[in-house]
C-alpha cells in the first residue's frame, strides 16, 4: 500500500507543474549549454525576470496579464543582451561566474525592502493569476486512476506541457537547420567557426536570448504554480537543479530536458516520500539517532548532489545519451 502511494505520489510530481517549470528552464539551458556550449548559470535570473514582471504588471501596476507576459519576455531579452555584451567574448567560465552573479543580483534586488512597494520584498507578490484562472477550461477534478489533480493544477500542467511540446518542436526545427549547425560548431570550437566567416558573437547572443526566453516562460509558470512570486523560487540552486535535469536527460538532445525533468522529479519525490515514511510517526522505522524526520527531508538533496557528480563522471551524455558521442569525448 505504501509502495503504491510512493509510486503514485512520485508520478504525480513527475508529471505535475513543477516538472513543467524545470522542463522549460532546461530547454533553455539545452539551447545555450547543450547546443552552443554557453555556461549560463543564471537561468534563475531569467526566471525571476519573467515571473516577477508578469506578476508585478498585474498585481502592482494594474496592467493586463498579457502585457505582463510581454514585459517579462521583453525584459528577459534585455537581460540576455546585458549579460552577453560583456561576457560572450570571454572564456566559458567567465560567463558562468557573471551569469550566476547576475542572477543573484536580480534576486536580491527584487526581494529587497528598497523595492518592497513594487515587488513585495521577501513575501513577494500575489493576486496576479486571475486571467490565467479564467482561461481554465477544466472545472472538475481530473482523475487518471493512479494520479489525480485539482482543476487548477491540471490546467497548469496541461497548458504547460503544451508549451513544452511547442518548445521541443521549435528546438528540433532550429537544431536541424544550418543555424543550429553553426551553434553546434561554436560549442565545439568557436575560433574554427569564426575562421569560416560566421559572426560567432551574434550567434551566441541569439542562443542566449532564446534560452533566456524559455527561462522567462519557466518563470511565468513558477509564479502561476504557487500563485505567488517570491525570491525563494529563483535561488541559485534552481539553476543547478535545471542543469541536473538537463544532464540527466542528456544535453544536446531535443527531448533531453523533458525526459530529464520527468525522471528527476520522479526520483526526487520518491526519495522524499521514502525517507519520510522511514522516519515518520512516534516509532519510526529508522531509529531517531540515525535520522530524524527533519534530516530525512535532506536525504533527497544529498543523494541528488551525489547523483549529479556520478552522472557527470560516468555518463556525461545523460541516462539515454548517445554512446557514439562519448567515444570521442576523451579530451
Amino acid at each position, binding site marked *: 500500500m505504501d509502495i503504491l502511494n510512493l509510486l503514485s505520489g512520485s508520478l504525480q510530481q513527475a508529471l505535475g507543474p513543477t516538472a513543467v517549470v524545470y522542463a522549460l528552464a532546461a530547454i533553455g539551458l539545452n539551447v545555450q549549454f547543450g547546443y552552443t556550449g554557453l555556461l549560463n548559470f543564471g537561468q534563475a535570473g531569467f526566471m525571476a525576470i519573467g515571473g516577477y514582471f508578469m506578476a508585478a504588471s498585474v498585481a502592482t501596476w494594474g496592467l493586463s496579464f498579457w502585457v505582463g507576459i510581454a514585459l517579462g519576455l521583453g525584459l528577459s531579452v534585455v537581460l540576455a543582451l546585458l549579460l552577453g555584451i560583456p561576457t560572450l567574448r570571454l572564456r566559458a567560465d567567465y560567463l558562468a561566474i557573471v551569469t550566476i552573479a547576475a542572477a543573484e543580483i536580480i534576486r536580491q534586488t527584487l526581494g529587497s525592502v528598497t523595492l518592497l512597494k513594487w515587488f513585495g520584498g521577501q513575501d513577494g507578490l500575489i493576486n496576479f493569476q486571475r486571467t490565467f484562472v479564467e482561461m481554465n477550461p477544466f472545472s472538475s477534478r481530473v482523475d487518471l486512476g493512479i494520479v489525480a489533480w485539482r482543476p487548477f493544477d491540471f490546467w497548469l500542467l496541461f497548458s504547460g506541457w503544451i508549451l513544452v511540446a511547442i518548445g521541443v518542436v*521549435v528546438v528540433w526545427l532550429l537544431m536541424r537547420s*544550418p*543555424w543550429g549547425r553553426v551553434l553546434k560548431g561554436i560549442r565545439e570550437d568557436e*575560433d*574554427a567557426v*569564426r*575562421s569560416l566567416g*560566421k*559572426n560567432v558573437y551574434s550567434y551566441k547572443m541569439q542562443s542566449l536570448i532564446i534560452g533566456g526566453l524559455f527561462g522567462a516562460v519557466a518563470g511565468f509558470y513558477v509564479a502561476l504554480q504557487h500563485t505567488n512570486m517570491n525570491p525563494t523560487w529563483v535561488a541559485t540552486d534552481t539553476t543547478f537543479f535545471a542543469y541536473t535535469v538537463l544532464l540527466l536527460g542528456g544535453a544536446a538532445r531535443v527531448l533531453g530536458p523533458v525526459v530529464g525533468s520527468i525522471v528527476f522529479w520522479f526520483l526526487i519525490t520518491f526519495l522524499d516520500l521514502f525517507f519520510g515514511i522511514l522516519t515518520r510517526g512516534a516509532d519510526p522505522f529508522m531509529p531517531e539517532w540515525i535520522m530524524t524526520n527533519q534530516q530525512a527531508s535532506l536525504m533527497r538533496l544529498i543523494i541528488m548532489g551525489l547523483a549529479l557528480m556520478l552522472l557527470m563522471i560516468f555518463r556525461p551524455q545523460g541516462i539515454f545519451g548517445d554512446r557514439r558521442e562519448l567515444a570521442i569525448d576523451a579530451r
Partner: protein
Amino acid sequence: MPADTTAPASGSEYVDRGRAAEARKALASVEHEPGAPKPDPIVVADEVTRQFGGLKAVDVAHVEIQRGAITALIGPNGAGKTTFFNLLTGFDRPNTGRWTFNGKSLAGMSAYKVARLGMVRTFQLTKVLAKLTVIENMRIGATGQSGESLARAMFPFFWRAQEKANTERAGAILQRFKLDAKRDDFAGSLSGGQRKLLEMARALMVEPELIMLDEPMAGVNPALKQSLLGHVKSLREDGMTVFFVEHDMDMVRDISDWVIVMAQGQVIAEGPPDSVMADQRVIDAYLGSHHDQVLDFEEEEKILQEAQEEHVKNEEEAQ
C-alpha cells in the same frame, strides 16, 4: 637533402594550367630583400608589431604577398609566424600597424569579417568540430547560407536547395582530399593527418581568394604529404593565392614560388626558395636562434629541476 623535388604530385588531379610559371615569372624581377615590393600584391602589411610582456613577438616593418603565387613563411620556432597569422586574420590585435587585403584596410576588423572578404586561415593546432560529422564540418564552411539566419532556419523550404548544392560541392572537395569514405563519421574520430586535410578542405568551402595555412604538413605521413602538396599546387591553378607556414624545407622548396623568412618577429630575408635557403642570414637565424632556444629550455629545466629536488629534500627532512 632534397632528393626528388621534381617528383610529380601524385594522387591528386593536378592540372597544370601554367599558373606556376606565371607566378614565378611575375616574381622574377622582385628584389631578394626583406619587404621587397611585388608587382601585384594581395596583402600589404606595414609596421605591424605585437608585444607580449617584454617580448616583441612580431615586428614586421613591411611585407607584401604576391597574388596568385604560393608564398611560404618560414622561420625558427617562436619566430612569430603564428602570431603574424593571427594578427593578419583578426584573431589577435596588434600593438601598432596597418595592413590591407585587396587594397582594403583590415586593421581592427573582426576575424569573421576578414574571412568573409576571402582571406581564410587554418590553425597550427587543428580545430575540427569534433562532434559534427565530416560532411557537417564541410557544410558549415559554405558562405551566404540563408538557413543560417534565425528567421528562416525553422523553415527548410528556404534553404533546402542551397543546402543540397553545398553538400554536392562539399562531396566533391572531400573526394579530392580522399575523405569521402569518412563523410558520415564524427570529425573527432579522424586521425591527426586527416584533421589537417579536413581543415584545409573546410577552408576551401569558404571559396577564399587567399588561403593561409599554418603548418599544413605537420603530423602528416609522407605518402599523404605528397598528395597534399598536389592539392596546394592545384589551389594555385584554381586562381587562389596561398600563404603558408611550414618547417618542412623539402615541401617549401617543392611548392613555393616565394619564401619569406621571419626570425624574432622580424622579416629577415625574402626570395625564391633556393636563393633564400642559401642566404647566410637565414642560416644564422636558424642556427643562432636554435642555439638560444636550447639554452633557454635547458635553463628553465634546470630551475624547475632544482625546485623539484629542493622539494624532495624538504620532504625527506620533514619525515
